[in-house]
């Protein structure tokens, strides 16, 4: 029920600038995932939107109103924290109703809203328990319930699933996505897990070292990564990259020369995703296998790219029994090649 605008937002701690100007416009009801490695500034950016960190420069707007100088409570947001941040001395019901109680909402209205949220999150049986008597997943739900009950215009999630085990994480991922779709509340979601970003986001902001490397839908980022970082961070296993030269729409890899449909010229960083490799006995390229990872549905083979010393990974469908030292030949469809400026890392 609100838009969020970031306009050249910067953050400095003392003299150190940690966020170097992030701009984007988030439309009403959109699910935005901010993804990046630890220390990239993604949580800081989220906390600035929440009002828990001051904005050093630039503007943050919620629903068209600049909120830089507003207290968290006046921004009409709700936040779910990584460690849930439940009030340990209150029951689940009191936890969820705390915000409403502060806002002096009538008692029966609180009761009704908490009950509705508890029903939505299947927490009805736990309302009188204390957080310490709940499992991780249940605590996570309570934290979300606390956010929902206040009917905010923006949800903020700060790595909400990173304390859960793998199976529960997949389940909660779907639940959060489903909940957000049903409630239609604009959401900013921070994670370091690119799978979470890919599966949940309407659009994602890929962050690195305080910069937004790319802002786009998951498939846009996957198919046309705008920077070398975005290319390697999104997608699993990550994209193979190697330095090489392009001349007259051909690319030399070791001894081999393969066609390259690009306007790039001279030295470049080239990249190809492991899953875009086509095993081909007569293929121009080869990999010397060092180690295999059978995943069942497909097999990852790690080794060296033929004729170079670059580390290279390929993904082959099904089970593949490879031994160390084996040479596997393959080819690449030129539309799956990515090229990046060797200095700036920008897409060419």
């Amino acid at each position, binding site marked *: 029920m609100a838009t969020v605008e970031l306009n050249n937002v910067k953050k400095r701690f003392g003299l150190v600038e940690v966020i170097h100007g992030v701009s984007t416009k988030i439309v009403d009801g959109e699910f935005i995932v901010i993804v990046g490695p630890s220390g990239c500034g993604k949580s800081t950016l989220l906390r600035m939107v929440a009002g828990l960190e001051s904005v050093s420069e630039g503007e943050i707007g919620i629903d068209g109103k600049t909120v830089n100088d507003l207290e*968290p*409570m006046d921004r009409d947001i709700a*936040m779910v924290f990584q*460690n849930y941040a439940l009030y*340990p*001395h209150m029951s689940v019901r009191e936890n969820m109703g705390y*915000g409403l109680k502060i*806002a002096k909402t009538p008692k029966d209205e609180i009761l009704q809203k908490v009950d509705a949220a508890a029903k939505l999150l299947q927490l009805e049986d736990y309302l009188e328990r204390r957080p*310490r008597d709940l499992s991780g997943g249940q605590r996570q739900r309570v934290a979300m319930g606390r956010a929902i009950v206040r009917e905010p215009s923006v949800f903020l999630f700060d790595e909400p699933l990173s304390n859960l085990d793998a199976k529960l994480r997949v389940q909660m991922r779907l639940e959060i996505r489903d909940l957000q779709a049903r409630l239609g509340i604009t959401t900013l979601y921070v994670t370091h897990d690119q799978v979470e970003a890919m599966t949940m986001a309407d659009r994602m902001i890929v962050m690195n070292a305080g910069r937004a490397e790319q802002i786009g839908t998951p498939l846009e980022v996957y198919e046309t990564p705008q920077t070398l970082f975005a290319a390697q961070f999104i997608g699993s296993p990550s994209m193979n990259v190697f330095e090489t030269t392009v001349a007259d729409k051909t690319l030399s890899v070791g001894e081999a020369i393969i066609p390259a449909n690009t306007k790039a010229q001279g030295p470049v960083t080239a990249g190809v995703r492991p899953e875009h490799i086509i095993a081909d006995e007569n293929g121009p390229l080869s990999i010397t296998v060092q180690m295999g990872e059978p995943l069942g549905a497909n097999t990852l083979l790690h080794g060296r790219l033929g004729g170079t010393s670059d580390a290279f990974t390929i993904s082959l469908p099904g089970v593949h029994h490879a031994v160390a030292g084996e040479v596997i030949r393959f080819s690449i469809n030129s539309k799956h090649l990515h090229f990046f400026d060797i200095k700036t890392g920008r897409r060419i």
Partner: protein
Amino acid sequence: MEKRVTFKGWLLPLCLIAPQVIVSAIFFFYPAAQAVWQSLFIPDPFGLSMQWVGLGNFEYLLSDPYYRASFLTTGIFSILVTLVSMIPALFLAVVADRLIKGAGAYRTMLIWPYAVAPAIAGVLWLFMFNTRVGVVSWYLGNLGYDWNHVLNGNEAMGLVVVSSSWGRISYNFLFFFAALQSVPKSVIEAAAIDGARFWKRFWTIVLPLLSPTTFFLLVVNIVYAFFETFGVIHTITAGGPQQSTTILVYKVFSDGFVGQDLGSSAAQSVILLVVVGALTIFQFKFVERRVHY
């Protein structure tokens, strides 16, 4: 898997607990037992003979209006000391916890008074409030207030309470400060987002989370007020004027070593033992039940 350490013989475990047991036995159980024994006799003033009186000492004490007044004095004194040493400590800890710059320096300075021995603290305050040469009493005199704790029992009580609490504030501050630092920051932030302003957060979130510490300090401070304030009272008022600051511990001393009524003194220490024991049991049984998490 059993995580407890298991010993093969019993010589080593015996040696390990021996220091604690020996110290307790020599300095606590033996004198306590002796006090109980002595409370059943009246020795003559020269300590040459003892006369068996059974519970006579207790009977006499409980019907003695001075002794009963001392109970009331102790109650008022310990409640005041506990409040005066805990509330400012909590306030200072909350304020110091909010500091971003110079927090370390403030913390260190706030802890200093704890290093001052109670008797010296007593003398310090005595000098400031001395009716003839004290700085504070001189200022009070200029303001038209005639300070005289040597004559006025309430003023004497106020002075010993403040002197006893002063150093204790540092001690309590230290515990409150540590407890505040261990309140998860995200819980506070969650409350801020939920719309609670600073003092609202303090009352509804922080204070309940501090309750284990508060409870611990409550017990420790009451025990302190009962037993360890002797030095302060002895230096400042010596129990006066007119017994208005004679707390139970001080009366044990003044009846026993000044008044030479050793039987009564022993009986008083037995009563004191029972009172503090009961108080502690009461606190753990009833107050702790209301302590969250």
